[in-house]
């Protein structure tokens, strides 16, 4: 068994929290630049130019690109031949969040429960999903997920007879209803299949794939391309003020499901798509 120390996890998570919030990923940054060339609306172009400038300022001044520094969501690919020593994996991740959000002057946006709504003042707890995998490494994929786009996300148990057309219609409806609230241009994460809770997880997981990278299955990749085209014809545009860039990308993950089921989940990501990963 390979040993992985608690403190190393804390440090990696803390670093990722800060970097994710200060440095916009190159994939998203390049997508802004590409959209600036194709966007038809003058207002839309101005919005995109402002977002590029904002990302530059955040990197240069070492400050968060967005004031909503998000809920930390981690997907941990835990190698079954390694052992965490010095404490629990969950505690290590939360300690890392606490450290990163304090040191990085990031906003604490988590409340201890939705009834009394008292802030925990250290942005913990994060949401941690663990996937057991082969090998002796731990891969931690994290995102700082903003509240505005998360609020406009949705899940529906469609009927199998709704088919591909039903899936497309539902996804377009969610994006249309979200409009400016989800802070477009969006990255649209889709889960199809699984069951009720698994489908939502697939949608979240899909958002970890780099912007511009298609699904390896050609049939899924084709659906992504078609939906991307449709979403950008909705007219919502940057910040919902009208335009041709409503989404920077769309990601779909599919999984087996029951013969009676067609679950579809849409997890919207604002343009401040903050994803990092580390391997220990």
């Amino acid at each position, binding site marked *: 068994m390979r040993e992985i120390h608690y403190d190393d996890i804390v440090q990696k998570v803390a670093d990722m929290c800060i970097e994710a919030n200060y440095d916009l990923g190159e994939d998203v940054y390049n997508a802004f630049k590409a959209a600036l060339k194709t966007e038809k609306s003058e207002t839309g172009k101005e919005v995109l130019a402002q977002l590029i400038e*904002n990302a530059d300022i955040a990197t240069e001044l070492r400050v968060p690109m*967005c004031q*909503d520094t998000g809920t930390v969501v981690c997907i941990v690919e835990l190698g079954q031949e390694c052992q965490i020593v010095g404490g629990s994996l969950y505690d290590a991740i939360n300690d890392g969040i606490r450290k990163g959000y304090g040191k990085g002057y990031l906003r604490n946006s988590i409340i201890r429960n939705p009834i009394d709504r008292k802030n925990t003042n250290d942005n913990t707890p994060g949401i941690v999903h663990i996937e057991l995998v082969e090998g002796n490494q731990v891969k931690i994929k994290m995102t700082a997920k903003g509240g505005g786009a998360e609020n406009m996300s949705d899940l529906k148990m469609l009927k199998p007879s709704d088919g591909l057309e039903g899936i497309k219609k539902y996804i377009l409806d969610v994006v249309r209803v979200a409009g400016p609230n989800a*802070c477009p241009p969006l990255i649209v994460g889709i889960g199809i299949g699984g069951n009720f809770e698994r489908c939502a997880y697939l949608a979240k997981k899909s958002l970890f794939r780099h912007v511009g990278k298609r699904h390896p299955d050609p049939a899924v990749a084709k659906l992504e391309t078609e939906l991307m085209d449709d979403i950008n014809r909705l007219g919502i545009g940057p910040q919902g003020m009208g335009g041709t860039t409503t989404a920077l990308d769309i990601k779909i993950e599919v999984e087996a499901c029951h013969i009676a089921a067609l679950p579809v989940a849409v997890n919207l990501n604002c343009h401040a798509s903050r994803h990092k990963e580390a391997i220990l």
Partner: protein
Amino acid sequence: MPIFLQVPFQKKDIQGLTAGERVLLSGTVYTARDAAHKRMDDQLIEGKPFPFDIEGQVIYYVGPTPAKPGQVIGSAGPTTSGRMDKYTPKLLDLGLGGMIGKGYRSEEVKQSIVKNRAIYFGAIGGSAALIARSIKAVEMIAYEDLGTEAIRKLTIENFPVIVINDVHGNDLYREGVEKYRQI
């Protein structure tokens, strides 16, 4: 070319503004989001005084990040305005001149904007580091215990916004999208 506007303003100063126009705001605005709105509303119901003179003022829906040493304020972009819709018509009736945020307003808020000759500005969501540069001073006004959600008075200079809902009932979110919608 952007329009320059001083805040707070008199109602007559904003009657000529139209949805879609770019405006640079200078002067002072008050921050308030979910928790502060709830508390202001509770206090109004209890008949307690309002935390600031609301006449002609602009409320900015924001919960900034903590300021780093040497900074006036942390990153400070707009939050989704719709969560404040429940409280907004009452504040507009009390004399609030306008709001800065992002995202849809309810029909009730839009009607109240027209009725009260007020205005709703959109700031660019997620451009919080850029917006912070136009905030020159911060003063704590009320509800300090709410942390990022406290009411602060911001001194701003050339703060960039776009008119979303104007006094004539125009709505950029509706009209802008109609112009580019192909399906």
